[in-house]
């Protein structure tokens, strides 16, 4: 028994000494944690970019330039427009097309034109929201499930270490302590994966909500402008 006490309790020896299910749980948790952090950094970058894009576009839009020029400028860019710009592009394209059709056919129905532009903007808005919401469900499930996975590993490890106790007449703490320590590593990693995921999820969800409100209000305002122009 003195041999176990003399063992050093480095984190590596703890993990190496753990039973197979506990090691599997640790592996799953580490992979999950890596992915959730990866998505967190991706999301941070993309949401920040979406915010600056919205800011820039609103500034360009409300400075009161010609809408045709703005539209041409967007189309000339190498990149496919994103965020508010893509909503504007879709709405304006549909509006122009409808107008040309109406002009060719000689009929003039404002509500039809407006309805078409609105539908196009709605579709673009949905696509944008889908992009903004990407990976958030993953973060949410990591935040809620990984503590349980860690707890499972811990319970399993503690069960094992207590089962080992039953064969000894004099139970000492040194016989259980290493087993419990290695089992608790699973909970620690589970929490390490869960806490950032929950914080990031809440932050991203609120940012996405604010962006969607901004997009929707832009759609309303742009519809008004188009209606006036038609």
């Amino acid at each position, binding site marked *: 028994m003195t041999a176990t006490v003399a063992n050093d309790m480095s984190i590596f020896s703890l993990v190496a000494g753990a039973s197979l299910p506990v090691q599997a749980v640790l592996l799953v948790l580490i992979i999950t944690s890596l992915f959730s952090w990866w998505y967190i950094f*991706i999301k941070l970058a993309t949401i920040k970019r979406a915010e600056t894009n919205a800011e820039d576009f609103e500034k360009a839009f409300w400075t009161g330039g010609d809408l045709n020029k703005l539209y041409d400028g967007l189309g000339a860019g190498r990149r496919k427009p994103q965020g508010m710009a893509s909503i504007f592009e879709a709405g304006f394209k549909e509006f122009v097309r409808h107008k040309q059709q109406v002009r060719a056919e000689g009929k003039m129905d404002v509500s039809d034109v407006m309805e078409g532009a609105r539908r196009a903007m709605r579709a673009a808005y949905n696509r944008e929201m889908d992009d903004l919401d990407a990976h958030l469900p993953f973060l949410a499930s990591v935040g809620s499930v990984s503590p349980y996975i860690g707890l499972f590993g811990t319970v399993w490890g503690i069960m094992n270490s207590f089962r080992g106790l039953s064969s000894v007449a004099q139970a000492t703490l040194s016989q259980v302590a290493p087993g419990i320590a290695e089992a608790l590593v699973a909970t620690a990693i589970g929490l390490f994966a869960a806490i950032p995921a929950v914080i990031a999820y809440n932050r991203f969800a609120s940012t996405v909500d604010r962006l969607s409100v901004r997009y929707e209000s832009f759609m309303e305002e742009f519809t008004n402008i188009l209606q006036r122009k038609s």
Partner: protein
Amino acid sequence: MLRTYEKEISWKAGGLALGVHVALLAALLISFNWKAAHPMMNVTEVELWDSIPSNSPSPPVVKIEPPQPSPEPVVKAPPPEPVVKEEVKEIPKEESKADIALEKKKELEQKKAEEKAVKLAEKLAADKLKKEQLAALQAETRQDDMRDADKQAKDKKVAKESNDALKKLQQDALAEGDQQALSAKAAANAGVVDEFKSKIQAKIRGNVNKALCGDGNPELRFEIGLLPTGELSNSPKLVKSSGNAACDEAVERAIIASEPLPLPSDASLFSQFRNLKLKFKPND
């Protein structure tokens, strides 16, 4: 999995994610002193013994011998003589003292009995009884005296014999010194072996779960093989069961849990521990 617009950032994000985990690992390794001394290491284990280990008395016996081979064995040998003589003398002295006390008592009794005999001439029956007692006492005292004389004679003989033996020892001290040393050493070794056997048993006994052995006083015998490190060379063999399988298993587990078993530091004694037959009485 990734949107097209996310691909440009994916490598950077992956690097950052890895960095976070490396930072966590580093924090774990640095902030926790994983190799800290465990409190268990500071606890000293104490084993209580009724008898003092017989290691200490043996060295003087062994040490007395080496001087004998020196050039003047005659001068150095005498010391044992007075020890023997004193012992021889002391025993009779004690006995004689006791005898004197007894005799004085008996004389007093005799006098009293005589006085009583003179005074109470009427009570013949009593007289007879007392006379008989007297006779018996006198016979006893005679016998005691005889015994004492015999004992003294015997003691003197023993003393003479031991003196002769000592003289012989002195004469061929060089030759016999080694043999004596060997025999003394063997005696000491036997003491050490017994001591460590009882140590082994005590250590195992401490690990036995006595609750499994019931109320009676079962006796078990195990045969165990030991390695020089104190570990078991094979699993303990049950030679005689207690009749209770749970009790047998408890003792076997205790034997395994007691590894490493205490062994004398003297490697030459290990041969006596290679195969040990141990008797256990868990409820004793």
